[in-house]
């Protein structure tokens, strides 16, 4: 069954050395199957975001093993990790983190330009397609700061999808949105999971949101207490 596991963590531990050897993660093991929509829930400070950044290759200071798409992430150079991140992971943050220096369309295109797999005009078509899918195509040539919060988050999701990643990792994607926009974002995620078989890993403290995902991983004080 291992070959269907997109993301797998084995006994991942992390210690914050600079805050008095505080251990934030204790032997965390979890996995995400292909096409699965998994949520991680827990109180503030339980280590769920820390785990997320370790899983997303941005934090490399941990013990334990992580496999992404069957590849061990340990011992790789920052360059290799950047490449993996670019190709296999799509990111959605609590804040949209769009770059105001670029237009909405260019923001969506940026990861694909880095990947360099397709010519520029094709990337443009792909980006427009993603924007259309997320119903923000009319905003393509605007500047990100002209958009509403919900629109920004949808553009951020389009950006995460542009390289057809193996997994989308989201950190509190609805944390900054109102009820209506949260609902829209959630529906996008379920659609991605159901229709496009996209694997998703979402950190949230919204129980309501979590309850509607395929599987909930609950964390307390740096330990996984239940995987339903």
């Amino acid at each position, binding site marked *: 069954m291992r070959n269907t596991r997109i993301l797998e963590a084995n006994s991942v531990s992390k210690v914050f050395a600079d805050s008095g050897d505080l251990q934030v993660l204790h032997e965390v093991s979890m996995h995400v199957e292909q096409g699965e929509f998994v949520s991680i829930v827990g109180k503030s400070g339980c280590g769920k975001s820390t785990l997320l950044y370790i899983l997303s290759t*941005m*934090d490399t200071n941990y013990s334990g093993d992580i496999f992404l798409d069957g590849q061990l992430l340990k011992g790789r150079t920052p360059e290799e990790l950047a490449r993996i*991140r670019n190709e296999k992971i799509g990111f959605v943050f*609590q804040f949209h983190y769009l770059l105001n*220096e*670029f237009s909405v369309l260019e923001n969506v295109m940026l990861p694909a330009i880095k990947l360099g797999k397709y010519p520029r005009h094709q990337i443009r078509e792909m980006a427009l397609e993603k924007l259309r899918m997320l119903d923000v195509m009319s905003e393509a040539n605007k500047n990100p700061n002209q958009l509403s919060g919900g629109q920004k988050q949808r553009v951020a999701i389009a950006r995460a999808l542009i390289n057809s990643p193996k997994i989308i990792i989201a950190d509190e994607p609805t944390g900054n949105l109102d009820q209506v926009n949260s609902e829209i974002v959630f529906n996008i995620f379920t659609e991605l999971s159901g229709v496009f078989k996209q694997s998703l890993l979402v950190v949230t403290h919204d129980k309501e949101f979590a309850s509607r995902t395929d599987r909930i991983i609950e964390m307390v004080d740096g330990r996984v207490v239940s995987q339903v």
Partner: protein
Amino acid sequence: MKGGAVTGIAWALMMAKWRQTLVAGLGVMFGITMFVTMLGFMTGLNHLLDGLILNRTPHVRIYHELKATPLQPVQKVLQDQQHFIRSIRPLVSKNKIRNSEALTAYLKKHPNVAGVAPRVSSQVFYSLGTSNLGGTLQGVDVATESAKFHLADYVTEGDITNLINVPNSIIIGKGIADIMLLKIGDPLEIIMPDASSKRLKVVGFFQSGIKDIDKVLSYTDVSNLQSMMDVPSDHFTEIYVNLKDMKQAPVLAGEISKMFDVDAEDIQKANSQFETGTKVRTIISYSVGITLLIVAGFGIYNILNMLIYEKMDTIAILKAMGYSGSDVKRIFSIISVSIGIGGGIAGMLMGFILSNVIDQIPFNTASLPTVKTYPVSYNPGFYAIAFLFSFVTTFFAGYFPSRKASQMDPVSIIRGK
């Protein structure tokens, strides 16, 4: 967004804050402008000061000094014995340079010699009506003097070539003209030491910058004066030599005086203070120039550092999207070097314009009658140094902040919110 991923991002980041980019570019531009202008101006002034001496003094002056022979003829016969005959005095005509034809031929073939101008001079009286004025008349080889030397620069009225075009003509010092109320075209009677006299036509005035010289000295064509003195055409009292490499003057002077038994004086000996002055002025110019560049360099560093700190969020997002540390480093290096190149080119342009402006400011000095405006040097070397410096400084000024940016941990930025 055009160009490669990295150049496109660099361009977009610069354009997004174009005012800040402009200010950074202006900072570079200002430094380079000042460097080019100051160095050009100071070098121009230095050349002017050097010219005060160089234009008047030949690199090597060959002459035959009138002096008593150190070895009286009687001593040659009666060595180590007491003698009382000490009456052999030097002949006046002996101040002519011996074997001058062979000497000039030798000099003209010498690889380092740029110009050879023989001169002949005589004591004369300038006579007009009842007033007689003592002075010196020099016969010069007009063609060589105006091509290889600077005599023509000091002719303030009239033209030096008239000395050949107009027969029996003379260019007199401005002082003489003022005393004797002479105008161009007036005749002037010259009385030679042997009491013979000749009428010459005034075709120009010269101003050497030294009043006492202007009151006594005049110039005429060399063959004209030779005929007035009733001497053959190889009779010269001085030979002026200019070299391609001035530093070789002492060597050549020594060589000539030994080979041809003449006196030869090099410019370094004639103006020993000149070299010191030039050296000191050059040191001053370069200290000012280097100071300007260092100050400009720190300005560039500060601006780029600030620019990168402001972009920390952007860097974090780019990294999260999969842009690597070296991509980030390249982005900021492109930004800083573009600012450097843009500012450098603008600075050279502005420096050139400013130099031109200075070049227009009137500057009149009695000692250099040909100089009408402030002198400015347009040495392309300064421009090359300035451009190279703007490139290198901005590269290093951008390198350290961009290295910091490339090593930055995106999680700390993203989670810090």
